[in-house]
């Protein structure tokens, strides 16, 4: 059952006041879906009950949690800036030194969603690589819907606002009505394909860097182990794996070694670690 008009109005007023975002009538489903976890965390089965309690108590923390739940899109450009900076200053020089000019640098964005990570990496590589040096970025996701947007490279203004430096917006995007679209230069070396991380990795090349951030947390221990084993099969022997800050290989797959660098922690294979045979 949908929330009441009074509850919906309280939420829309709150969100408009705090964020300038206007939730039009008809977005009740969105309010229901986004606030359900908050209601549950507060020990309430119904979103309506939760909203009524917040509207009575006006608890500052809960009000802000509602605003965040309704305005947060977890996919942003250059998400976790220090990771990109560490990639630029620490990993990229190592890779450039280890690879011949004609060898493309291969990067996997393993939870690509709507493509912001893959395109952010492409922007950085265009800026950082010397002329003639090639790169290939493969973005994968289990959801065909989000990949459709990633391939189209079309983003709303709200999506563009999320962490994209203005100079990159001007250089790598073109206005298309109310949307922004990536330029052919940015799109050229980025491809997207559907892939379920919990299933065999078929048809992937060997990657120099694998960004698999904030995705292992969704899997149980056995599936994590299986994924990390198969990641080793598609990772160059001197390649790097980058996980989310709350994720680790420790205790799951001991073939990886954590290397702490400025702004970045990345995993590489223990020297001499044997690559597993491809078992899917």
């Amino acid at each position, binding site marked *: 059952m949908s929330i009441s008009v009074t509850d919906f109005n309280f939420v829309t007023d709150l969100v408009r*006041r705090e*964020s300038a975002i206007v939730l039009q009538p008809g977005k009740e489903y969105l309010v229901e879906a986004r606030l359900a976890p908050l209601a549950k965390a507060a020990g309430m089965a119904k979103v309506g009950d939760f909203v009524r309690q917040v509207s009575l108590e006006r608890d500052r923390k809960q009000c802000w949690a509602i605003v965040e739940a309704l305005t*947060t899109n977890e996919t942003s450009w*250059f998400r976790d800036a220090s990771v990109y900076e560490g990639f630029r200053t620490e990993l990229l020089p190592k890779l450039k030194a280890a690879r011949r000019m004609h060898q493309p640098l291969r990067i996997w964005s393993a939870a690509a969603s709507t493509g912001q990570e893959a395109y952010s990496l492409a922007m950085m590589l265009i800026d950082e690589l010397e002329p003639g040096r090639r790169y290939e970025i493969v973005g994968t996701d289990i959801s065909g819907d989000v990949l459709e947007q990633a391939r189209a490279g079309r983003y709303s203004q709200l999506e563009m*606002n999320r*962490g994209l430096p*203005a100079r990159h*917006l001007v250089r790598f*995007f*073109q206005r298309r009505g109310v949307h922004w679209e990536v330029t052919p230069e940015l799109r050229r070396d980025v491809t997207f394909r559907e892939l379920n991380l919990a299933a065999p990795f078929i048809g992937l090349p060997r990657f120099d860097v694998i960004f698999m951030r904030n995705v292992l947390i969704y899997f149980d221990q056995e599936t994590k182990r299986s994924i990390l084993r198969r990641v080793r099969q598609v990772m160059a022997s001197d390649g790097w794996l980058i996980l989310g800050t709350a994720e680790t290989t420790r205790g799951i797959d001991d073939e990886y070694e954590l290397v702490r660098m400025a702004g970045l922690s990345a995993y590489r294979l223990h020297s001499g670690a044997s690559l597993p045979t491809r078992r899917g």
Partner: protein
Amino acid sequence: MHAIVIDDSSAMRMILRRIVSQFGFEVAEASNGREALEVLAASDTVPDVALVDWNMPEMNGLEFIQAVRADDRYSKLTLLMVTTESEQSQIVRALAAGAHEYLIKPFTPDAVAEKLELLGLTTAGV
């Protein structure tokens, strides 16, 4: 850390004040560029960041940015333009005038936080 929010809409000033103050900034306000220059001149401290609307009466945001960039006293003031102006050519104009970053309205609180992080003014992330 100090910030100044420059916008002719009191509602927008309040929204930005709330967001920015969450990151520990003390926030001053001005309703146009001229008033902001007066606030800056009267203060002992140069703010770390100015969040500047574009379209305002008396002195608009672009004119304010040009005035600030021409004044050595404010060489360390970071300028974030926050505006409904969304044409690419306008963004280029603002950057050329000296804006360090650009945020298009409407925005989410996270978007403001990410711009502050991008500008090196916060480290907490979002």
